[in-house]
């Protein structure tokens, strides 16, 4: 098995202003399932096409935004070696006990230089619904809503993106698949731990710890069209799309959850191998890079975050 260390995004924990409206939105519209509710009120959700316990955690709060983003690593020992490497780099690491989130083993937790809390864990129980394993049909329970297949990636906004790039590449062994350089410096990076075009991305932004979007993967462009119908039918707040990203080549829509957290549905995107070069974009063509058909950024891309 060639994939070692960090495997992929595991789960995201988001703050929401209205739990009932949020659960309805992520289950009926995005197409997720509630796995369980915690005693502290957090709600744990997943796509039926994911094996692991959950990939989305909602926490009721009086602000919107991101609490933390967690990646799954291959082996339990990886947590010890990453802990040492992160501490040697100069970032403090907290231990989070197994079971702090139901179904999830011990985690290590740290705040990177952009102000975001990132976590690693190795163990997750499986939960229902999940894909069939023996003589598997294409789905176990019928896809509904936007038919999201998994929590795919996130885009985060904060300062010190040069340092974040260095940390993810040198300490967590990610690769940089694409980057945008403006005349005054690095604006954005797309990072991958595996073979997707990105698992996490960052845009340079003065305020630390901000959240731009979480993306849910769809099967194809036809499902992106279906998601667009759902967005209008249920009066979901739209940002932009359906359109395509030049960067990653993903087919996409940006829209907002009931607390104003931006969501994306995402289909396609190229396959990345670690021997591929980093693809680069400049100020002149950044519009095409972000929104391939519009060829310019919209008002909200750089200014609207939670």
């Amino acid at each position, binding site marked *: 098995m060639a994939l070692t260390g960090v495997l992929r995004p595991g789960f995201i924990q988001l703050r929401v*202003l*209205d739990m009932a409206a949020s659960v309805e939105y992520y289950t009926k519209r995005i197409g997720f399932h509630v796995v369980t509710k915690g005693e502290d009120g957090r709600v744990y959700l997943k796509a039926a096409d994911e094996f692991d316990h959950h990939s989305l955690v909602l926490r009721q709060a009086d602000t*919107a935004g991101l609490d933390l983003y967690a990646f799954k690593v291959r082996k339990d020992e990886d947590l010890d070696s990453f802990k040492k490497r992160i501490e040697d780099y100069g970032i403090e690491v907290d231990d989070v006990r197994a079971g702090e989130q139901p179904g999830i083993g011990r985690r290590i937790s740290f705040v990177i230089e952009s102000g975001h809390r990132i976590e690693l864990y190795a163990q997750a129980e499986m939960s229902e619904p999940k894909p069939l394993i023996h003589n598997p049909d294409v789905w176990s329970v019928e896809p509904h809503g936007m038919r999201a297949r998994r929590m795919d990636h996130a885009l985060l906004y904060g300062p010190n993106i040069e340092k974040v790039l260095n940390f993810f590449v040198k300490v967590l062994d990610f690769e940089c698949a694409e980057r945008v350089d403006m005349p005054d410096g690095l604006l954005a990076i797309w990072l991958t731990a595996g073979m997707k075009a990105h698992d996490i991305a960052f845009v340079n932004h003065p305020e630390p710890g901000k959240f731009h979007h979480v993306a849910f993967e769809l099967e194809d462009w036809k499902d992106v069209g279906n998601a667009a119908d759902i967005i209008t039918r249920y009066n979901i707040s739209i940002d932009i799309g359906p359109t395509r990203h030049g960067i990653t080549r993903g087919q996409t829509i940006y829209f907002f959850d009931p*607390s104003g957290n931006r969501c994306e549905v995402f289909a396609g995107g190229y396959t990345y191998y670690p021997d591929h070069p980093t693809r680069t974009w400049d100020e002149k063509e950044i519009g095409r890079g972000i929104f391939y058909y519009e060829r310019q950024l919209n008002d909200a891309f750089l200014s*609207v975050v*939670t």
Partner: protein
Amino acid sequence: MSEQRFNIDVENINAEFCGSSTGYADERVLVSLERAQGFGKLKNLPKRLPVGCRRGGCGICRARILEGNYKRDPMSREYVTLEDEKEGLVLLCAIYPLSDLKVRLEPKCVKNVEANSQSLEI
């Protein structure tokens, strides 16, 4: 659909009159302003109407209610603190009119207005 209609006057940060929109009791005030902008009814805005999440999370549509009554959805405390709330500050996307309204756009940090308007004009 509710037929209760209201007039919403909007001022910019410099207290200059920008125009009016028709508000409905079952419609977010910000959405009525977006429609007015689409019909070319909003002038004197230093930039386009600030529209983001339309769900009370991102804070970009922060404003002061100068006159009138409204009903509110939850909105992020990051952008409207308890003190702000007592002063009549709101996020326009998270309120619904209960009478005619007069509102003034008031971004969180006036110092940031310049930086914001740059990114908004891209």
